[in-house]
Structure formats: C-alpha cells, structure tokens
C-alpha cells in the first residue's frame, strides 16, 4: 500500500515537469531571433516506479505510478543537414573570393572600351601609319611619340593597379587566417566549458549551439571534418562531448583543434618578399598552397598569388601581371630592334626608341621613350635603307613598325602567337574564368540557401508551435494543481471528518 501522501508527491512532480516544459518554451520563444539558436524540447518520462513488484507485496491490481519526470532538455537538430550546409558554405566561400577578385580585375583591364590597352594600341598603330605616309611632317612624328607614351602609361597603370589590388587581397588573406585562428580559439574555449559541465550530467545546449555556429563560421574559410569524444563517464547519453577539428588535405588530415588536450594548432602562412605564399604551416606540419583544400582561404591565396610545388609564381593576379610584363618585354625589344634597323630623317642610323628593358619582371612598368627621341622627333627612324642618304620621303620602316601587333611574337605554351592574339587570349581567359566563378558562386549560394531553409525548418523556433505547446503544458500544470487541491480535500476528510461517526 502506498503512502497517504503519495498523491501529493505525484501531483507535485507533475507540476514540476510541466513547469520545466513551460520554462523551456519560454527559452525558445525568447531566442526566436537569436542566430544559431536551436529549439529545445523537454523529454518527459514516467518516474521510476516504486516499490518493485514482488511476492510479499501488498496486492493491488497494478502498480500505482510515481508520476512524471522531466529527464533531459535536448536540441532538435539534424547533423546531416549541418554537414550538407557546411559543404556548400565551403564552395560559396571559395567561389565568392574568386569571383570578387576576377570582377576587380575585369574593372581594371576595362576591355573592350576606349580606355583599354587594345584601344591604346589602335591609336599608336594609327599614329605610326601617319608617320609612314607623311614621314617628314614633324606634327605626325610628335603625335607618334605621345601615343607611344600613352602605351607605356597604360601598361604601367594596368600593372600597378593590378599590384595594388593584389596587395589588398594579400591583406584580406592575412585577415582571413587571423579569423580562422580566432575561431579555433573560441571553439577551444567552448569545448572546455562543455567539458566542465557535461560530467555533471547536464546538457549544455546553448554551448552546443555556440559551437555549431562557430563551426558554420569556420567552414566559410576551410573545409573541416569534425569528431566528437565523450567527455566522461557520468555524462548523459545525449551529450555530444568535446569536438576535434581536422583539416582535410590531399596528404592526410591535420588536426586544427585537439578537443581532449585543449590544444589549438594555429594556421600560419609563410610568404616570400613579394608576399606570395610559399608554405602553409599548421601545428608542425607544412603544406604547399597547391595542396590546400578549397574554401575562402584557398580562394584568396589563389587570387593573391602563391609559389606552387614546382617553384613558379601562380595565381589569378600573378599570372595577369606576368602576362603584361611578357607583352611589354617582347613589344619593347621588337620595336627597338626594328627601329634600330631604320634610318632617321637626318639620314643617321636608328637608335633605340624605348629605353632598353633587360628583364621580363617589371617590364610593364618600365616602358619609357628614349630621351634622344623625345628631344628631337627627327630621330624617329621612319625610313629604311642605307644610312647617309637623303631619306625625306621614305616611310618604309614606319610601315614595318606599324605592324607591331601582328609581328611581335610571344611564346604561349608550345607556339608563338602575335601580340594581338596573346592579348585576346588572356582577356578571353579572364572573362571565361570570371563567368564560371560567378555562375558557380550563384549556384552554390542557391544550394546553401536550400539547405539553410531545410535546416531552419527542423531547428528554428516556430512561434505557432510554441504557442500550442504552451497551452498544452499550461493545462497539464493546472490539472496537476487541481489534483493537489483534491488531495488536500481528501486529507481534510481524514483529519477532520474521520472518527467522528460515533459522536
């Protein structure tokens, strides 16, 4: 036979449990707009029955239950959706960085417009043609010099602007590394807090939320794999434990955050004097940037330039700057060579038109017209043939010079192409790359949006649902309270009403 006050205890447990459920609803509702918040649910269980049924027990038809217990408060979250979301976030990060870099480059190159390099080439070509048809006119000769200056200025403007943006991207890249390291530090802190709480049998749901938010944030920059380790014997079954974060590279994983030992292996970039990334160091291991996995960080490294495993400069901006240097170098050398073969207006042998450019690197910023040409336009070697004769009406060499766009040959992979062809192909490549980056960026954003929606539909707080739950639990609470009143009346009967029958 159970105790006289048994019912009081059962009703009290009912009130406690419904109250816990109501408080959890309150927590959900108040966090409806908190980023990264996952709705929580109290799991209600019947309280362990007492006493255990046995032979020597007072016989009742069944066992009288001991009421309810609010056992755990759990988060409602689907880890598979988290994985899907993070996979897409990695792609968004990578393509976003790449598309941004290419967009800025397209703005600088500004093709096809009147300010682009090809338009400046056109004008230069026209001015040489003018000299070819009117070789003795000083006017057309000075126009040619001005146009040549414009070519030099355009080359140097393009090259320096590209380098400025590259510098900005390098800064952005360094900031990204700092952000990744700070995220890892924050995650380490949350891990430690979780490990302090879990062995007491509690579920630190809000800390789990915070950790998942940090992981989402981290997956913008680098793709990581996540492992969970239980934090102790006494931790309750649904507890998640501490997290260990690893970076997947093509040469095996590297641990970024060791959950059990609370150790963070920060990422650091090793750069050369031009701020190109040569190696990426993580916790005693190093990888060539080429082997680094996709993500925003990789996108920024690719955009701002790195040294690949064969020791060459690679990268979106690096290759464009190199191409411009190559074009400038070949152009200046060819033009000087042909110019030297000509004869000036005064019948002298031609000299270099531009100052000599000895090496490819930096050639684009070093196109300067030779002082002698600038000082005296007659020094333009428009004529051809032997020196010393009167060459007033001869524009043959200028005619030859005007064909620079077809005749300057640049080695492109396995064959020589003309200056025009080379320029067209690099501009074409740039716009194809930009188009692809933009398309994949918007695709992965759509995919990310779709998963996010699905994730929200499981984990986000639905106010309607919380309202119905509130009514449900409130009714149960009221009913439990009513039970207490009823039991109170029963006890009143025992205390005041019993034993008075014979009076």
């Amino acid at each position, binding site marked *: 036979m159970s105790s006289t006050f048994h019912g009081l205890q059962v009703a009290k447990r009912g009130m406690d449990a419904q109250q816990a459920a109501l408080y959890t609803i309150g927590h959900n509702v108040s966090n409806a707009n908190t980023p990264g918040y996952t709705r929580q649910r109290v799991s209600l269980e019947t309280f362990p029955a007492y006493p255990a049924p046995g032979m020597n027990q007072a016989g009742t038809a069944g066992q009288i239950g001991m009421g309810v217990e609010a056992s755990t408060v759990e988060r409602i979250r689907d880890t598979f959706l988290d994985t*899907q979301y993070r996979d897409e976030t990695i792609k968004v990060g990578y393509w976003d960085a790449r598309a941004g870099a290419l967009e800025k480059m397209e703005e600088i190159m500004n093709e096809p417009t009147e300010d682009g390099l090809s338009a400046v080439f056109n004008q230069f070509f026209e001015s040489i043609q003018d000299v070819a048809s009117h070789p003795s006119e000083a006017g057309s000769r000075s126009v040619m010099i001005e146009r040549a200056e414009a070519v030099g200025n355009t080359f140097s403007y393009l090259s320096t602007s590209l380098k400025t943006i590259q510098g900005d991207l390098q800064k952005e890249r360094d900031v990204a590394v700092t952000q990744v390291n700070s995220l890892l530090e924050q995650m380490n802190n949350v891990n430690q807090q979780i490990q302090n709480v879990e062995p007491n049998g509690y579920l630190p749901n809000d800390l789990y939320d915070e950790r998942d938010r940090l992981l989402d944030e981290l997956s913008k920059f680098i793709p990581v794999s996540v492992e969970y380790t239980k934090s102790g014997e006494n931790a309750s079954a649904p507890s998640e434990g501490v997290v260990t974060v690893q970076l997947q590279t093509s040469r095996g994983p590297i641990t970024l955050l060791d959950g059990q030992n609370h150790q963070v292996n920060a990422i650091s970039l090793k750069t050369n004097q031009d701020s190109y990334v040569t190696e990426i160091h993580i916790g005693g291991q190093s990888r060539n940037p080429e082997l680094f996995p996709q993500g925003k960080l990789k996108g920024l490294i690719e955009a701002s330039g790195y040294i690949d495993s064969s020791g060459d400069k690679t990268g979106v901006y690096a290759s464009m700057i190199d191409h411009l240097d190559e074009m400038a170098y070949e152009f200046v050398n060819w033009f000087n060579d042909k110019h030297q073969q000509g004869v000036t207006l005064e019948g002298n042998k031609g000299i270099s038109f531009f100052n000599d450019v000895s090496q490819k690197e930096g050639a684009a910023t070093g196109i300067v017209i030779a002082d002698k040409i600038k000082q005296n336009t007659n020094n333009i070697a428009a004529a051809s043939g032997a020196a010393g004769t009167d060459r007033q009406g001869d524009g043959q060499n200028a005619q030859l010079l005007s064909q620079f766009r077809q005749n300057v040959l640049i080695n492109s992979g396995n064959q020589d192409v003309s200056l025009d062809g080379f320029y067209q192909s690099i501009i074409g490549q740039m716009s194809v790359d930009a188009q692809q980056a933009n398309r994949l960026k918007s695709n992965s954003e759509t*995919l990310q949006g*779709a998963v996010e929606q699905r994730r929200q539909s499981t984990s986000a707080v639905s106010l309607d649902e919380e309202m119905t739950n509130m009514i449900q639990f409130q009714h149960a609470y009221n009913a439990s309270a009513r039970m207490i009143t009823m039991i109170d009346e029963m006890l009143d009967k025992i205390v005041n009403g019993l034993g008075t029958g014979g009076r």
Partner: protein
Amino acid sequence: MQEIQTILEKQVTLHKSLSVIVKGKTNFIIKQDVKALTASLQKEQSHIAAISALESKRIAAMEKSGHTARSIEEIAGSFPEYSILIPFQKQLIDIIQDIKYANDLNNQLLTQSLQLIYTELDLLVPAKREDSFNYTKTKNSSFQSNSIFNSKV
C-alpha cells in the same frame, strides 16, 4: 531559306519559354512544392515535343535546300545570303547554354534533397544485402519486403 528562318525564330521563342520553366523549377525544388514541380514538368514535356518536331522540320528544310547535315556557320561561309541566320544560331546557343546551367543547378538541388531523404530512409528501412560471392550462380530472387513494417516478424 525563309522557311528555315521561321523555324529558327520559333525555336528561339520556344527555348526562351523553356528556359523560364526550367528556372521556375529551381524555385519549386527549393520550396519543395511537388505539385507545382509536376505541373512544370508536364509543360516542359510539351515544349520538348514541340522543339523536337521543329528540329526534324528544320533538318527536312535544310535537306530540301540542298545543305544536308551541315551547320549554319558552314553554309553561311559559302553562301552569304544565309548569314542572316547566324544571329538566330548565336541566340539559340546562348539560351540552350542558359538552360543547361539551370538544369545543372536543379540537378544539384535534387541530389542534395535526395541525399537527406535517403539518409533518413536508411535509418528506418533495412537495406537489401547483395551477396558478394555467389559461386552457385543461382538467382537470389526470393521476395524481400521493402516496407517499413515487416509483417513476418
């Protein structure tokens, strides 16, 4: 010539409206609106039928004009009067590429949601096991229930 041009014009308009449908499908997939998705699939089917009918008409017209199985670009190279068809061809290529990219995206979106569905379904339904080594080569065609509820148990 004139005939080919009208056919191409029709093809361009049809592809344009097909591209609108395909892009609409993206939204339906994201919203998981199966009803609307089925409706647009039907529309898409009728478009495809019309397009393939036009395509066979175009081939017939090309044959009639004596340029069997050659691209418009090739013909325009040798017969200048055909060069007015080139803008149509370019437009068509652009639209078809657009449709292809939209379909790629739809494909990825579907793969993504199916991944989720299969992972959740796999938790409920036991997977059929294939014998790795079957020396007797007997066909293992015994009926296996694939429902969530196994009545034999």
